[in-house]
């Protein structure tokens, strides 16, 4: 919010993404967008607004509710020379078409001995905005486990556009996880970089960001939780706790170097993740840290994620299972009191 005066366009995440898609489609006529409600409607979150009227229905195609098939279509399209962007409306629905994602999209480059490329983006909206067990999931941990897929999870508004541009230009398949909250959040209320240049630009996939420099605790996180982390860090700074925040930006490739450098400095690691806790992101980050840093120079390692429970409908329940501003703050304060 410090940057507020420099914000000339009060975009939200969906507009930033739509702009990237629009500009990339302008530059390469092989790029096409398929999915439910991506056409006239412009995407249920607006993340493909303006594209249909500009590029027409051949290149921006509303699909029937047949995710398994239109995901597989992307494979054929890619083999025929197109560069499909496939929207799966909510991450919760990935299970309908996951087979095509991990057995075809993620493996064909390898299975073909490098002969076939899969320049496909699967974009999907993750995260909790109050829609209960079947419409709130992140599932990026699930996808990151499967080889051959780059997993991009933007947080800042700047990255929404720049990482989407990179994803579209990539010749490797990218699963692009938007967060519903960020799709709807406007620049002026972003804490991380809210400036979205009008011209095209890319943010490289595989390099973490450091939206806050600090010396006491390294907080590693991604997606919407970066915003929560920044707010919490701002608060605890008043109590003299200086938090360094690392926004992973992508899970595959994972920029562990940036994490390691920070943890070597702070010796305290907190991983915050809105996905389910076990067998997911937090375990992987922590393991890579202990694989690389002498344990005697690690003072504290903690994680904070959804405690392996479906997201409940009632707000009173949801608040206690999804990491939020308060819960992160409390973790930080607790850690600062420790060794």
């Amino acid at each position: 919010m410090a940057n507020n005066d420099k914000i000339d366009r009060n975009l939200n995440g969906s507009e930033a993404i739509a702009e990237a898609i629009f500009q990339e489609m302008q530059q390469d006529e092989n790029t096409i967008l398929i999915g439910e409600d991506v056409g006239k409607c412009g995407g249920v979150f607006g993340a493909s607004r303006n594209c249909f009227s500009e590029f027409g229905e051949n290149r921006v195609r509303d699909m029937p509710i047949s995710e398994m098939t239109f995901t597989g279509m992307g494979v054929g399209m890619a083999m025929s020379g197109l560069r499909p962007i496939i929207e799966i409306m909510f991450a919760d629905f990935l299970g309908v078409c996951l087979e095509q994602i991990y057995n075809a999209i993620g493996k064909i480059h390898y299975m073909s001995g490098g002969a076939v490329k899969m320049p496909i983006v699967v974009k999907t909206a993750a995260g909790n905005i109050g829609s209960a067990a079947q419409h709130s999931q992140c599932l990026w941990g699930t996808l990151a486990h499967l080889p051959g897929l780059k997993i991009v999870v933007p947080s800042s508004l700047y990255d929404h556009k720049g990482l989407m541009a990179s994803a579209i230009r990539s010749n490797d398949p990218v699963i692009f996880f938007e967060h519903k909250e960020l799709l709807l959040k406007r620049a002026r209320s972003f804490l991380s970089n809210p400036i979205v240049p009008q011209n095209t630009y890319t943010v490289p996939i595989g390099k973490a960001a450091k939206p806050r420099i600090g010396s006491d605790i390294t907080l590693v996180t991604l997606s919407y939780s970066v915003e929560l982390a920044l707010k919490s860090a701002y608060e605890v700074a008043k109590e003299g706790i200086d938090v360094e925040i690392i926004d992973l930006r992508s899970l595959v490739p994972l920029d562990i170097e940036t994490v390691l450098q920070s943890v070597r400095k702070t010796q305290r690691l907190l991983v915050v993740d809105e996905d389910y806790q076990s067998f997911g992101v937090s375990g992987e980050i922590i393991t890579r840290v202990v694989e690389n840093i002498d344990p005697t120079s690690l003072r504290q390692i903690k994680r904070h994620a959804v405690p392996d429970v479906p997201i409940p409908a009632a707000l009173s329940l949801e608040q206690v299972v999804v990491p939020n501003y308060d819960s992160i703050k409390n973790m930080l304060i607790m850690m600062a009191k420790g060794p």
Partner: protein
Amino acid sequence: MNQIERFKAMVEMRFFDEACLEGVPTMEIHGELHTGIGQEAISAGLLGHLKNSDALVSTHRNHYHALIKGVNPYRLMSEIFEKKTGICQGFGGHMHPFSLKQNFSATGIVGQSLPVALGYAYAFKMRKEDSLAIGVIGDGAANHGTFHETLNIAGAWKLPLLVLVENNGYGISVPISKVLATETIAERAKSYSAWGKCVNGDDPDIVSEAVEEAVSHIRSNQGPAILEAVCNRFRGHYEGDTDHYRSKTEKQNMLKGDPITTYSKKLLSLKVLTENEIQNIFQTSKQKMFGLLKRVRGEKMPLPETALNYIFCEKTDG
């Protein structure tokens, strides 16, 4: 089931959903809400044809199906308002109501009502019970692979399954005509050796007649049926949907055909009801449903410390 009851059911459903709408701007219902407003005639057409032991598996747009299946309206509305008195104690929410007693359930995932209904149908046939299962879907869901897989299995083994398609013309913003290879969905019945019919879903008498036919086909062990009822979705896909993809004219025309108004006129002209009686039904229903709303609003939300209950039913240490 007579026409008066059908009419009453329609009016009650409408006011049930209108009561729910009150909880949206206040954030009492904090996720998205899908109402059935405009589609009452279809559920009303089910009245009297279902046994308690029959199963009904519904979708994201499930309130009317729950009501017609006998789910307690108070507990249903409580669930929609995320209260501890809800049929799922507030854990499920409006897209995921479950009531074992009525063999009623729903899912928020398009197309996934059908396999679940088929599972019931299989169990009924296997146990030689005289019950049937209804899987409700929208037109959009008819293009999902489960439609095919489910009906093929039901057809091959003559399972007691009714696929009820509420064809409101849209899957969110996508007109079904843009993404369907045929004129109607019901004509696919032949591919599954099934009974199939497409009817006007705005008149509960027509729907009821078709349900009667379909159900007697199924109960006489002749295999599955597809009943497609054409209707309109009066509001946006969910509350919050700006519905900018439909033109004003289209929406105005649609609203002229309100099935409740049309049916009230029909019953008037048939002299089944007087204008007065109709007004009475409106008032009583409204009072009933807004009375429920008031009570529901007074209920408590589930306690935060219960949030980790029910992950498993058997104790685990891991």
